């Protein structure tokens, strides 16, 4: 992640899960009403451009697809791209996730200057070292998919966080499913 992002405590579970469900890609059961599903992790958010002095000269035509201006869509992915989710201990791109990664490919094709990191994540089960390698392979699988769609591999870095940066801190399938994820982050 870039230094432009600061961690802010945002009660974002509703936002995240609402957008998640709205995309129609969740297979998970909705938790019983009123019962918190899981603790919510801090979400990195861009630093607002504030300060005591005047700002720098900038273009009238803002580019939303820079690391400084991009907005989180879901997980830690920058919109309009969407994260892809994985089955336990798997790194192949699931059939129901292909539309997402192809959408990300369309975005990258239309915005040729955008460089991204594909960030692989795992749920907490399994040992740290193994999950680090598993997360890397999840990121590599998405990278290969995008390269096959015609995206230059020089535009695609991979970073594995293994189980070290969970989005949700719960110890149940609802949290785990969201943590088994590739994020697509503009650099």
């Amino acid at each position, binding site marked *: *992640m*870039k230094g432009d992002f600061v961690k802010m405590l945002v009660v974002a579970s509703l936002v995240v899960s609402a957008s998640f469900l709205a995309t129609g890609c969740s297979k998970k059961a909705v938790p019983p009403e009123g019962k918190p599903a899981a603790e919510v992790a801090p979400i990195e958010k861009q630093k607002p451009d504030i300060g005591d002095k005047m700002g720098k000269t900038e273009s009238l035509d803002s580019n939303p697809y820079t690391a400084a201006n991009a907005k989180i869509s879901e997980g830690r992915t920058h919109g309009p791209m969407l994260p892809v989710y994985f089955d336990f*201990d798997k790194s192949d791109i699931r059939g129901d996730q292909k539309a997402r990664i192809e959408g990300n490919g369309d975005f990258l094709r239309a915005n040729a200057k955008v460089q991204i*990191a594909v960030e692989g994540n795992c749920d907490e089960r*399994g*040992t*740290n*070292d*193994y999950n*680090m*390698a*598993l997360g*890397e*392979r999840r*990121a*590599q699988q998405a*990278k*290969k998919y995008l390269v096959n769609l015609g995206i230059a591999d020089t535009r695609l*870095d*991979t*970073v*594995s*966080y*293994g189980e*070290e*940066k969970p989005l949700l*801190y719960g*110890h149940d399938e609802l949290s785990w499913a969201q943590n088994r994820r590739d994020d697509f982050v503009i*650099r």
Partner: protein
Amino acid sequence: MKEKILDCYIFTLRKRLSDISLIGMISKIFTPRIVAGSAGLALLTILLLLPFSSAWAGKRVNLDITSAEFKKIPVAVPYFVDSNRPNEIQQAGQELAMLASKALDFHGFIKTISPTSYGGRQDADWANVGADFVVTVQYAGSADNVVMEMRLTDVLEGKMILGLKYTFPWNKRKQMVLKFCDAIIEKLTGIPGVCDTKIAFVSDKTGQKEIFLVDIFGDSVRQVTRHKFLAVSPRFSPDNKKLAYTSYHRGNANLYITELSQDKTTQAFSRRSGLNMAPAWTPNGDSLVVTLSKDGNPDLYQLSTDGSVVRRLTTNAGLNVAPCFSPDGSKLAFVSDRTGEPQVYIMDYKSGTVNRITYQGNENTTPAWSPDGKWIAYTGKDDGRYQLFKISPEGGQPVQLTSSAGDHEAPSWSPDSRLIVFSRAVNSQKKLYVISQNGKDMRQLYSFEGNQTTPQWSNRMN
């Protein structure tokens, strides 16, 4: 058995404290010999207690503590006595006796007897107290120069079996007591103790994961990294002088190596695109095996000490991670999911031939080769939880070491192959524990704030 004593004596000299120079000492043939040391440092003399050398003729004390049936040895450590005030109990004498008890108990095969049960006196009736061995220590001197005489007595034989005399400044008293404890352990088992070792681990107590070092008693904690982002997977170099780890603070999972003699700088050792992590140093320190994903898949590579790739060790066979050398450096244990599930494999380091050794269960990871070469400890999934196992490097039936609640992960052996440190997660709290290599006597090591994970036990420091 004179030979045994002398071995111990030589060992004691080798383990001299790094910040003390040996200015004068008596050699093993009791002829004074001068060793030049850096100027201005304290005087440290180590002498054998002469009366005991002639008395020494008893049986060899070498206890087999490896069997699961082994019962702990009862040892009494009465309060240390100030020779100038032999009839008073001194606070310092009590504290040092407690330290010695803690150090002896730590090794897992000794149970020290509470001094309060016999008043802490050095002249108690030891057979009646129930002690098989007694540790008695007298000290005398000023703040600058203390002479400490330490004796280990076999109660059943009625004989002193180890006697050491140290002269040192008072502020080194704890180190000297621990040195004596390591010598006691060696006298009893043939292998020195591990009082002078450290454990590296990852902690999240600052809010981010950083690498820390601590002595085995948890008394002095040192925060090694201050990258303030995410640092994982610490690994000691074989000489303990360097610590490798993976940090993400520059946007890629880069492998860093820092010199532990200082706390200001570190250096990226491998910063290839993607994963650079968890090195296994060859035991002689001349190369490292790391997991890289620069070619599109997490695979093992041999790097030279200048960071350049010597050769790629795995290709087209799932992900390959968590390398660990056999003590002689001829073989490499690692984890691969080439069959579709993670299992432990052993590679012949020269030929590259690979054999799978774990077949029980569908998830076996983080192999750790014991320093004596006899076992590979690992994390295995058992009934949905993670437990520790050990298996012979030749394969065969694994031995389950842990079976308690929670997840037990990432074993690392003590340099004497007697203990295994690991992290255990219970109720979302991850803490460091040790267990004896026979699966007995699991205990929590520290009660530090936050979560502690992926411990690595150092070699002996000196």
